[in-house]
């Protein structure tokens, strides 16, 4: 079985974008340097000098420049090495890009992609670690995707660049970059407006985003040895996820855990629970569980950071409780190796 890393998939779509579409440009801080956005734009400036554009430190105007490019027939891919820096572009993203088509009654389209990297581990601290999917997904007019696998990257970026005519935000998780995945991963139900059935199961539904999909897989593998079957849905598009997929799964299992990379309140977890509550709260046989970052800014100290983010132990514990339909269970928790340590050494098998 062949495999590839998340990073190499990103590199592939960036190369393809420039190669296949002469009116595509990559623009952002560091896109031309020797690190090349964690290796995803390396060497491209030499091959396409006019279309790989280094920028001043000016996120607000660069976002507006991207809108202007999109309006005048060039597809811009704008990078932010941390989503936190993307916050300086929110005026353009929310007040302008998201509204441009609707506000002018369909006179314009603003095709553009904003890549934002979500940081985590090695002391990223409070301002290099935020995962902004719920802020962005709240806004009508924006598409927001959190690809969890290289296949999801390939499908969603290709579609966004060649088909989608509006603004899209791609939230890439830094910890995923060097992970290797087999090439036979399932595809999302739609490249940018859909979710992905990651694993079939019968006892508990886990809806997860980004790297939490991998953490859910680890928990599911572990729990399988104890006879607990976990169904995993990779939400993929946080703005336009597959509602039916989620409802069908919860109807089957009656038990739901949402595992998100951000805070749970007003977030993905709240949203998924809204959908079920509005459809039919009786789909759930037990109260649902939400798992995300602790409700605080992210601390830098590793000891606190390990407590701050939920990991496989938390997932195993919560899923086992749901399965057992009580506050306790008899599944021993896996060894406590922090998630970051695990992924740092991680080289497969999926």
């Amino acid at each position: 079985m062949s495999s590839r890393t998340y990073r190499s998939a990103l590199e592939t779509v960036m190369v393809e974008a420039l190669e296949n579409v002469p009116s595509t440009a990559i623009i952002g801080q560091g896109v031309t340097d020797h690190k090349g956005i964690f290796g995803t734009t390396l060497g491209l400036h030499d091959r396409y000098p006019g279309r790989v554009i280094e920028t001043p430190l000016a996120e607000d105007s660069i976002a507006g420049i991207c809108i202007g490019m999109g309006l005048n027939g060039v597809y811009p891919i704008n990078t932010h090495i941390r989503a936190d820096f993307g916050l300086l572009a929110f005026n353009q993203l929310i007040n302008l890009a998201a509204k441009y088509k609707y506000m002018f009654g369909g006179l314009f389209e603003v095709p553009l992609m904003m890549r934002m990297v979500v940081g985590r581990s090695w002391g990223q601290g409070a301002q290099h670690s935020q995962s902004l999917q719920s802020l962005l997904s709240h806004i009508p007019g924006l598409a927001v995707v959190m690809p969890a696998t290289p296949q999801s990257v390939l499908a969603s970026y290709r579609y966004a660049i060649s088909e989608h005519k509006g603004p899209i935000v791609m939230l890439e998780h830094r910890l995923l970059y060097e992970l290797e995945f087999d090439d036979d991963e399932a595809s999302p139900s739609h490249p940018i407006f859909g979710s992905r059935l990651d694993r079939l199961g019968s006892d508990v539904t886990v809806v997860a985003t980004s790297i939490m999909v991998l953490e859910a897989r680890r928990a599911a593998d572990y729990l399988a040895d104890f006879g607990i079957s976990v169904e995993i849905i990779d939400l993929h598009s946080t703005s336009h996820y597959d509602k039916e997929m989620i409802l069908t799964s919860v109807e089957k299992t009656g038990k739901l855990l949402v595992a998100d990379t951000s805070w749970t309140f007003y977030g993905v977890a709240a949203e998924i629970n809204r959908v079920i509550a509005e459809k039919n709260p009786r789909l759930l046989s037990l109260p649902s569980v939400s798992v995300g970052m602790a409700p605080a800014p992210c601390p830098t100290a590793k000891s606190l950071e390990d407590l701050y983010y939920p990991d496989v132990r938390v997932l195993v514990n919560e899923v086992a409780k749901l399965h057992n339909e009580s506050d306790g269970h008899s599944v021993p928790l896996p060894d406590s190796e922090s998630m970051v340590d695990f992924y740092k050494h991680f080289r497969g098998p999926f």
Partner: protein
Amino acid sequence: MSNRDELIIRSLRVRMVEEKIIDLYPSDLIQSPVHLSIGQETVAVGVCAALDDRDMLFPNYRGHAFYLARKAPLKEFFAELMGRKTGISKGKAGSMHLAAPDYGVMGASAVVASTISHAVGAALAERIKGKSDRVFVAVFGDGATEQGAFFESLNFCSIHGLPVLFLCEDNSLAVHTSLDDRQSFSLERLSDAFGIVFFNEEAGFDPVAVFETTSAALRHLRGGSGPALLRVKTMRYREHVGPGEDFDAGYRAERTVTQWKKKDPLLGDLSRFTAEIALIRDEIDQAVEFAIGSDFPGIEELLTDVL
């Protein structure tokens, strides 16, 4: 007709349209904020007369004059202001978000300074597409020059030498605050600091002067020498937003406006334009009638064009 008279007539048309808005306003046919350009029409008319049809202009919420000066359709204008389905943006935009891409009028934003960078990006795209000698105009007020996005846009544009005309309509007011209370810098020296050529026009009431100074700036731009910043001094006669006058509020001296009005060609002897004025009046009446006779957008429009 002389060029001067032609430009005066065009400016007069803008003023008559806005005076119609003032007449209509108490009827509540227009249910949206209006930022009138009365007193400033000659800026839009002078600048747009110097542009080519293919040039792109990025206006702001005080945008009636630019929309009209680029000859975008009047019926769809009034329909848009009245929130009708036949409006240029199906009533979803209103006065603050006028746009007419077929006439090179890109979307107007009501967030101060937020379309300046769009002009820069469109110019960058033009270069990537390998085309040339088209010019991109960013329109903004004196207040917008205090925004970081303005500084950032000047910087980027200068680095890349893009053909953007930064057009500052300087009415020396941001809402009710005068320029002296807001700015520690001179626009000319700022422009110089970014290596951008500065053009200044004090006689913003004179459409020919504006036309000529703009033409000089455009020659610079089309010559491929990078961006230019053009500041035109002008005068807002009415309140910041709404149809009225507000001299009683005390934030500025009525005398300043009265003196400016003495130089306003639209307030001079217009007897030689009787025929043109009658035509404009008819055109306006027909446009208003068209708008009033148009349907309102319904539920079918509520969720279209979101994505």
